[in-house]
């Protein structure tokens, strides 16, 4: 099939970018979305043009690298998928597909569709860990954890750190990302000890980096490729209130 593409091209972080139109013939429904872009890039290189830069790695929905805003939605249409899991079956012959990078002040564009998500790293460094030195750990079964808590912690821990929540949020808020980590660790007895400090520091860092505030819109949750729910944000809010006392 033949499709039209509108893709954000930007040479470097400080240059001005813009949407560029492409027409691509010979696209197969069997391709994944990223394979379609690979194919586009092959044709661009063969024409002597520069390929579109985009991030990807595992191509099986687990590394969190891929990060495309497709037709108005992070990771495109479809529930709980990453861009690499999106298939061309979602499109029809003649469709126009608009591809943009994540947009947020805290995620500046590096090139084309690649953004700098190191702000997430900084938030994590502010407290997204349990301070357990190697060698200090007690026997793994010494602290039983109720299955429901372990399962809920797992649900939060499934976060890929892809940033779709920020991309989807009208406020470019990182609350779902932050809450997933805080919630995971707060649910486990091993991590619960540091919850107050963790909540305070991670939120302060999130604010400092220029993410917006959560106004409970819920767009993040709808676009999260791992289906992380905003009830974790409520837990984060509780932890934050608790941290003040």
């Amino acid at each position: 099939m033949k499709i039209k593409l509108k893709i954000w091209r930007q040479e470097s972080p400080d240059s001005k970018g813009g949407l560029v139109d492409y027409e691509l013939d010979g696209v197969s429904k069997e391709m994944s979305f990223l394979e379609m872009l690979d194919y586009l890039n092959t044709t661009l290189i063969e024409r002597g043009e520069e390929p579109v830069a985009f991030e990807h790695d595992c191509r099986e929905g687990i590394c969190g690298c891929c990060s495309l805003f497709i037709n108005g939605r992070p990771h495109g249409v479809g529930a709980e998928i990453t861009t690499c899991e999106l298939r061309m079956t979602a499109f029809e012959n003649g469709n126009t597909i608009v591809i943009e990078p994540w947009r947020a002040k805290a995620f500046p564009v590096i090139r084309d569709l690649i953004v700098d998500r190191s702000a997430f790293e900084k938030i994590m460094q502010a407290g997204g860990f349990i301070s357990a030195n190697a060698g200090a750990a007690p026997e793994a079964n010494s602290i039983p954890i109720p299955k429901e808590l372990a399962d809920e912690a797992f649900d939060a821990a499934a976060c890929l750190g892809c940033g779709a929540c920020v991309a989807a949020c009208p406020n470019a808020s990182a609350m779902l990302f932050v809450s997933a980590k805080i919630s995971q660790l707060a649910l486990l007895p091993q991590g619960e000890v540091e919850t107050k400090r963790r909540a305070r520091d991670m939120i302060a860092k999130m604010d400092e980096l220029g993410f917006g505030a959560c106004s409970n819109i819920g767009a993040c949750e709808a676009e999260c490729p791992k289906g992380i729910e905003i009830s974790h944000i409520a837990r984060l809010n509780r932890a934050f209130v608790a941290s003040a006392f």
Partner: protein
Amino acid sequence: MSTFLGASIGRKLIVAVSGLFLILFLAVHLVVNLTLLAGQETYNMVAHWMGTNPAVSVIQPVLTVGLLVHIGYSAYVSLSNWRARPQPYYWSDPAGGSTWASRNMLLLGGLILAFLVLHISSFSIRVKLGDAPMADIGGVMTKDLYAMVTARFELGWYVLTYVVAMFFLGLHLAHGFHSGIQTLGLSDGTWRNRWVLLGTGYSIVIAAGYMLLPIYFFLRTHSG
């Protein structure tokens, strides 16, 4: 405390607490309004009691402060939210995940505020300044607020404005109610839907309750 209020969540907590306070006030206000249906004498008596009760005079400034805080902090939070995305998307399709109201709380708030200005200028200020007709309640001459209100409700444009504003208020509450609860951290996986349901119900009751009076008085006058 400074880290608390300086943090985005701290500011949102202020919006939430002030908002939930205003939500409660709306219920009280509605109950008072509904006494209009009980007739001139009852309404004027209640209004008189409200006007002279010392508790009310304490609550009134609190309410004003609550409102101003709610407006001020909402605007502040919204402004910083806008700054978080300096470059907008060429195409944004929020279809999947969120309600229109949740994405337009500031706009709704602004519209409600505009109505509030009209509302206050047409009732409260006139009452305060003494520019009101008088009526006899049990031998005492008091301001005839009943007459004033019902006269207002005979004006078509006013009724329409009122009803539309209450519709916006309902939308604002439909998101604001459970959003406030969520910000306070009082929600979880199980309670979340219950709060949403409760909030939606509450906003329908409030919005419909307020709408009822102008429509009722308008129809009463113009149908016969």
